[in-house]
Each structure stands twice: as structure tokens, then as C-alpha cells.
């Protein structure tokens, strides 16, 4: 039931409870309660908008950084990950299997600022063994949305 509501909200967070009630067949009151509860227990983290900033000509630089770290006794990777993800420059942070441990996405106004962040903040953290920085050149798809999708195909009239 909650998952029915969340599946719709995930794609359109602006949808109103009465509309959700209509689409799921659940009472509106119940929908509002479920949403409040999901917000309270952090099942719903935040309501966001996916924006193509390039349309505004906004200059923003992003880099994906592969970070190799030494896990620590009792806390494993979590403590180092927290020291990294607490920085507001860090947009996302994942622990991965494979040749490196953390994948960190960092954003900044210029390439220099991002490079400085890696050199001065991230790399010196105790336990960080190494960092490989990949600057992002182009976004094709963001959060499931194709950025420059040209899929507006006009359908021809048909009888059926």
C-alpha cells in the first residue's frame, strides 16, 4: 500500500493526496497519514526537482572520485565514509566492491575548486590511501531521466 503511494510520488512529488487517493483507490486521510509517517521515519528523505542546469548556461563542474581507504577496526568503512560525505561539496557517496572502496561525486563551481577539494580535504583524511579523480564531461541520463531525450514522436492517425 505504502509502496503504491511511493511509486507514484517517486515520479511526481507534487501530486496531491486527493489525486493519489483517486489513483490508488485508498482513502485520502489514509494517504496523508502514510506520507506523514514515511516522512517521519525517513522513508521519504526529501522532495527534489531534477534540473538540466545546462539550459541556464550555469557553470558547474562535477567529478567522480574513486577512493581507496583502509577499513578501521569496529567501524569498517563507515567512519571514513562519514568524514567524507559530511562535506557539502559531496553530492553522493557509495561503498563499492572491486578495486577501490568509495565512489564519491563532488561538485563545484570550477575545476580548480574541485581539484582543491580532493587535494586539500579528501586525500589527507586519515585512512585514505589514494584517490583517482574523473571529471564529468557530459550527462546523458540523470535519476532515470534522459537529459536531451528527443522522443517526441508524432503519432499518425489510425483507426482501431
Amino acid at each position, binding site marked *: 500500500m505504502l509502496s503504491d503511494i511511493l511509486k507514484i510520488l517517486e515520479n511526481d512529488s507534487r501530486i496531491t493526496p486527493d489525486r493519489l487517493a483517486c489513483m490508488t483507490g485508498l482513502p485520502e486521510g489514509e494517504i496523508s497519514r502514510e506520507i506523514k509517517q514515511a516522512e517521519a521515519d525517513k522513508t521519504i528523505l526529501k522532495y527534489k526537482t531534477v534540473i538540466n542546469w545546462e539550459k541556464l548556461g550555469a557553470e558547474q563542474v562535477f567529478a567522480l572520485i574513486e577512493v581507496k581507504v583502509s577499513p578501521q577496526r569496529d567501524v569498517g568503512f563507515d567512519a571514513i565514509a562519514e568524514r567524507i560525505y559530511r562535506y557539502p561539496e559531496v553530492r553522493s557517496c557509495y561503498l563499492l566492491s572491486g578495486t577501490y572502496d568509495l565512489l564519491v561525486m563532488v561538485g563545484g563551481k570550477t575545476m580548480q575548486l574541485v581539484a582543491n577539494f580532493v587535494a586539500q580535504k579528501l586525500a589527507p583524511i586519515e585512512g585514505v590511501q589514494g584517490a583517482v579523480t574523473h571529471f564529468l564531461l557530459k550527462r546523458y541520463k540523470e535519476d532515470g531521466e534522459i537529459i536531451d531525450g528527443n522522443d517526441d*514522436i508524432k503519432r499518425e492517425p489510425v483507426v482501431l
Partner: protein
Amino acid sequence: MTSQVGTDKGFISDRAKELKPSGIRKFFDLAAKMGSGAISLGVGEPDFTTPWHIRESAIYALEKGYTMYTSNAGLLELRQEISKYLYQTYGLEYNPETEVLITVGSSEALDLVMRATLNPGDEVLMTDPAYVAYPSCVFMSYGNPVQIPTFEANNFEISAADIAPRITPKTRSILLGYPSNPTGAVMPKAKLAEIAKLACEKNLLVVSDEIYDKIIYSGFEHTCFATLPGMRERSVIINGFSKTYAMTGWRIGYAVGPAAIIQAMTKIHQHTMLCAPIAAQKAALEALRNGQDDVRLMVEEYDRRRRFIVKNFNDMGLSCFEPKGAFYTFPSVRKTGLSSNEFAEKLLMEEKVAAVPGTAFGESGEGYLRCCYATSLKDIEEAMKRFRHFLKHNCPQM
């Protein structure tokens, strides 16, 4: 005679001349002229694009050089997969070598089964309202379509009791189309079983068009007609990929049934169509093998739109029975005092919303509109606003 199509110079056959143009066409032509801002609830076509893995499999097939004919009956691999799918879904066993035929859309299958089974003057019983092509297919095979009225009060279902009095010595078959285009109605198993019994008693063939069998809601369970006692040997099941997998433009359908009928259909198919396009058959194969999750997601989305549109129609006073299949609603416009045609035409002209008058599907469709909800929720919301605006101005009594 001159018309939009020019002078016929006596070249056109009587049958083609007598064939009634579809009542839907007129509305699409009008809607096409409306230009931007028009919203169509008219076309029975999923708004989803075919899932990428299915499209990709066709691209791969073309890259690999699959550009040739297939056997007339279609790729054996696809026939085997269909056979397997029907066994897993309904417990039905069809021999892929002799009892499965791949067609160019389910429309071709429908045409073939009529051509393969009807002699001139044979009667085919079907519902009214019914999908526009049903009577036409029968007519083009020199048969006589006999439409039996169904009613909202009975959820647009048809019963053996409705059918029995219409059986004559000329009756050859019963053509069923459930889940239904245009009403969205479904048939409970018990009612189908009664029809199966009647078909046995009267030695009738049953053609069951089950193109919407996977697009069902509210926990309804679809019964494939061939699973009913005695029906495996006297029914032809028609299905396809267009609706279930959002593959309308690929034109792949199929028919399964007793070998004698499928072989007769294949004979006609090989002289007229030869075979269905190979890349599209490859895509259909991928759809069957790996497309079930896509179907579930699309049906979940249709279901949300269905609840939304049905509630909106009922709230605005256009009573709308709950469709449990396909992606159509069939709201009643009787209370407005307008005929189906008047309502649809005025709605299009004044509000730029295209819906199809129920009468396009038979006389029993008078008083109803067919509205397809396989369109984006945003468009459905806007269409509902325009319906309300229309009612306020044209039917202040409501």
C-alpha cells in the same frame, strides 16, 4: 460518384463500396485538423514506447543480418516460445509446428480465421458494441455479422442465454472479444463456460480475441477460452504483442487453434502476406522471454489512470461502470440529452478533446463514449478539466 477519394470509374468492387467506413476515422481526421492543443482519448494505443531491451533485440537482429523471409507460419523459435508461454500461463498445449501461426498483427489473424472458416452467407455472432473490425472482417469474408446487444446493467457481458435465440442453421461461429474494446468489460469464467457448452451443443466454432488478456485490474483473472471443457478443439485464440508490450507498430500477432484451422489460415496467409517481418518477430521473441516485468509496470500505470478517469467521470455525472480490462472507459452521456455523436462532435469542436462515440462500435453504443486512458496522466487531467467545462456550458442541468 465523386468524393474525397476521387471518382471510382467503376473499378471498386460492390463489397468494398458497401464496407462501412469506421466511425472512428471521422473523428481522427477532425482531430488531426485541430492542430496543437487537441487531446486525444481516441486512439487505442499505449502511449509507452516499446521497452528498450525489445527494441535493442531488433536492432541486434538487423545487425546480424536477419533481413530475410521467415517460414510462412513465422519463426519456429517464436512459435515454440508462444507455445511454452501458453502452457505456462494457461496450461494449454499447442504444437508449434502445426497449431501456431504468426500474423501481421492480430488484425490479420482475425481476417484469416474468417476467410478460412466462412462460406458465403454464414453468420458470425458477436457483441454489440464490438471492436470496429469484427463486423467488417466477417463482411469481407462474405459472411453476415450478427451483433447481439450487451448492456451496462450486465457489465457489458454476454451470456449463453443472449446468444442461444440468435443461432440459426447458418450460424458458423461466435466471435468473442474480452477484455473488451470498447467497453473495458471482462467475462467471468462461469459465463464463458455456459457459452462453451452452447458451442458444443450447436457445433459452433468460437473465435476468441484475447489481445488484452494481460491488461486486467482489480484482481480479475482472465480465462482463456480454449481452457474450457471441450473448447481446445473448437476454438481459435487470437492474441498479439501490440497492446501487452506496447508494440503496436511492429505488427506481430498470432493465432493458435486446431491444426486443420491453423493450416487453412496459413495457406491464405502464405498467398497474401507471405510472412511477418523477421526483425519484428525477433523483437516479439525478446518480449515474451524477458518482457513480463515491463508488462507489470505498464499495467500498474494504466490502473492508476483507470481509477483516476473513472472517478472523474462519475464525479462529473457521466456515470461510468468499472472497466476491469483493456484501457478504455465507456462513460454514459445519456444524462446530457445529447446523442453520442453530438456529444463527441461538440466536445471536439468546443474543447478540442477527441473521444469516440459509442455508436462507432454498434447501435448499443448509443449514449456512450469510448475514452482511452493509455495516454499520459497530464493529458487525462487536462481532458477531464475540459469535459467539466463542456458540461457546464452545454448541460447546465447536470
